[in-house]
C-alpha cells in the first residue's frame, strides 16, 4: 500500500555521514573539569575555543549562506529562529545576518574584560553563568542552521567528520556543565529542530552519553 509522502531523511542522519567523526572515543577526557581548576576558567576557555572553531567552519560556508539562499534562520522544515531586536520585538532575519549578529555579539563578549577577564587577578562576574547560557543557546542555533541548510556543502568540502566532532563535543560539553536546555536542542513538537534527531541518534550510538 502506498505510504504517505515523507520528507527525505536529512543526510546528516544517514549512514555513513552520521557516524563520520574526527574524534573517536569518549569526549569525557577533554570535557571533564580538571581537578583543582576553577570551573569558570575551564568553561570560559572551552567557550572561547568553540567560538573560534565554529567561526572557522562558518568562514568556509559563508559563500553558501547568503540572504538569497537562506532568507530565514532555518533549523528545521517548520522552524525559523527569530532575533529579538532593540525594541524587544522578535524579527525574522536572513540567516547570514542572524549569524553575523550572533558571532559579533559573542566576539564582543569574549573581548570584554568584564565578562571574559584575561588579566591575572580579575574574577568572573556573578552573571557569568547566565551570560554563557545565552551564548551557548545562540551558538547552538548556528550549528542547527548549518546542519539543516548546509550539510550538503559540508559533504562536498569533505568536512563532515570534523564538523560532526566539533558539534558532538559542543553537545557533550554543554550537557556536562548544564549550558544546554534539551528543549533548545529538540525544539517544540510542532516545530522540531533538525538536529534534535541527531542528538537522539548520537545518544543511541554512544557518541554522546545520556
Amino acid at each position, binding site marked *: 500500500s502506498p505510504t504517505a509522502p515523507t520528507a527525505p531523511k536529512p*543526510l546528516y542522519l544517514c549512514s555513513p555521514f552520521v557516524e563520520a567523526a574526527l574524534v573517536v572515543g569518549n569526549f569525557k577526557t577533554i570535557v571533564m573539569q580538571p581537578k583543582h*581548576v576553577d570551573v569558570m576558567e575551564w568553561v570560559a576557555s572551552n567557550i572561547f575555543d568553540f567560538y573560534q572553531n565554529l567561526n572557522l567552519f562558518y568562514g568556509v560556508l559563508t559563500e553558501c549562506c547568503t540572504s538569497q539562499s537562506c532568507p530565514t534562520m532555518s533549523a528545521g522544515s517548520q522552524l525559523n529562529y527569530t532575533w529579538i531586536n532593540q525594541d524587544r520585538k522578535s524579527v525574522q532575519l536572513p540567516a547570514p545576518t542572524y549569524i553575523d549578529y550572533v558571532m559579533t555579539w559573542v566576539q564582543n563578549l569574549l573581548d570584554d574584560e568584564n565578562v571574559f577577564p584575561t588579566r591575572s587577578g580579575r574574577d568572573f562576574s556573578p552573571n557569568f553563568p547566565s551570560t554563557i547560557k545565552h551564548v551557548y543557546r545562540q551558538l547552538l542555533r548556528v550549528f542547527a542552521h548549518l546542519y539543516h541548510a548546509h550539510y550538503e556543502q559540508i559533504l562536498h568540502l569533505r568536512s563532515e567528520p*570534523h564538523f560532526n566532532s566539533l558539534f558532538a563535543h559542543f553537545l557533550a560539553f554543554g550537557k556536562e556543565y548544564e549550558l544546554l536546555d534539551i528543549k533548545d536542542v529538540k525544539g517544540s513538537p510542532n516545530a522540531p529542530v533538525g538536529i534534535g534527531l541527531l542528538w537522539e541518534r548520537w545518544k543511541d550510538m554512544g557518541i554522546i552519553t545520556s
Partner: protein
Amino acid sequence: GQSSSTPSAPKERGADYVYFERTTAGFSDDAIPRAKAAQLKLEHYYKVAVDAAIERNTRRVELERKLAADTTTSDERKQRQLLQLGKKESSFLRLKRTKLGLDDFRTVKVIGKGAFGEVRVVQKTDTSKIYAMKTLKKEEMLKKDQLAHVRAERDVLAESNSPWVVQLYYSFQDPTYLYLIMEFLPGGDLMTMLIKYDTFSEDVTRFYIAECVLAIEAVHKLGFIHRDIKPDNILIDKEGHIKLSDFGLSTGFHKQHDSSYYTRLLDSANGVQSPTTAARNSVAVNAIHLTMSSKDQIATWKANRRKLAYSTVGTPDYIAPEIFLQKGYGNECDWWSLGAIMFECLVGYPPFCSESTHDTYQKIINWPSYLMFPDDVHLSHEAEDLIRRLITSHDRRLAVEQIKHHPFFYGVSWTAIRNIEAPFVPRLRSITDTSYFPTDELEQVPEEPAGGDSTGANKDLAFLGYTFKRFTISSSGF
C-alpha cells in the same frame, strides 16, 4: 572469512546508507583551501586538547604522589600546594585566551641578525619582564623549504626543560612574521667571543667544549639531531655557561635540505663540473689553503664571518661531510661539528675555512687531504687527538661516552660542570645590558619590527599550530 569487520562491505550497509556524489563545482577557488585549513586547524586543536588533558593530569598525579609520600608536611600545607597547582593551571587556561601580540612588547635593543630575521631584547609591557624576541619572515622560510623542520622540532624542544637549551616561552604570528619569545641570554654567543679573543687556552676550550658535549648529548636524548651546531648557536647565560640556541626554530634552516644544491655540489665533487665552477676549482684550492695561516687572511675570514652568519646561506664550516652526501646520517654529525668548533677555539679559524662557501664544501667532502694543524699554533697531543677523532669519517667518530673519557677531558667533572664558575662571567650593569652583542654592527635593522601586511591565505597553512604558549610550572607565570 567474516566480512563483517570490513566497514565498506556492501552487506553491512543499512537501509539508510546513502551514496553522495561529492563535487567542488560551484565553490569559489578560495573555498577548498579554506576548508582544508579549517580541517587541519581542528585536527591540531583536538590533538593539543588531548595532550593537554594528559599532561595536566600527569602534573596533578605527580604532585599528589609526592605529597602522599611526604610525611613531614602538614595536611593543610599539602592542601595549599594542590590549590596552588590548580591556580597555575587556571592561569594557564586564562593565558590561552589572552592574545599576545607585537604591541605587548617594547624593543629595548636589536642584538642579532639571523638568516630569517632579527633578534631583539624586548620588555613585556605589563610585567616588565625581559625576553629575547626573534622574528622569522614566513615567506623566506617557505622559499627555503624550512617548514617541516620547524614544526616537527618545535614542540619537543619547547617542552624540554633542559638547562642546555634556550627556553621558548611563547610564539605568535601575523601574516608576515613568526615571533618567538624566549629567554634572553645576556652573555652573547661563542662566535662573538671567538671574534674578540681569536683563540682560547686549552683550559678555556676544555670548559666550553665539555659543556657543549653535555648540551649535544641532551639534545640527542630528546631524540633530535642538531645538524647545524656552530659558534653562533652557542649562547652564553648570565653566569657564563652555555645553552644551545633553539634550533629547529632558529637554526638548521640552511641549505642542508635543498637537495638540488647538494646534487650539484656532489656532481662537481665527482668531476661532473659545471662550466662555472670548473675554472675556479682547478687552481684555487691549494693556494687558499697555503695562505690560510697568514694573519690577515684570517682577519679577512673573520670579517666575513659575521656577514656569513647574517646571510640565508649560512656558513657550512661546521657541517659534517655525510650531510652533504645525502645518504642518510645519524647524530654523529653533531660531534663532527663540535670537532670543528674545538679546532677553531684553539687555532683561531675553523679547519676548512676558505674564501668561498663552495671551496669550504669541497674541502669538507675531501677532508682527509685538508685537515691540517698549522705549525705556528701549539696544540697538546690530547687536544689534537680528540679533534682527529671527531673530524673523521662517521663510522670512526667517537661516541658520547668515549668523548667524555677522552684524555683531553681529564679532570672534568661531568656532573658538576654547570655549577662551577665559568672562565668568563659576563659583567652586566642591568638586566637589559647588551654590551656583549655587536649592536653597532646592526644599523640597518629597524628598531621596532614592522609587523605584518597581508600575504596569501594558503601560506598560513604551513604555519599552522605555530602559536605556542609554554606552561612553566616553576616560574611565576609569563
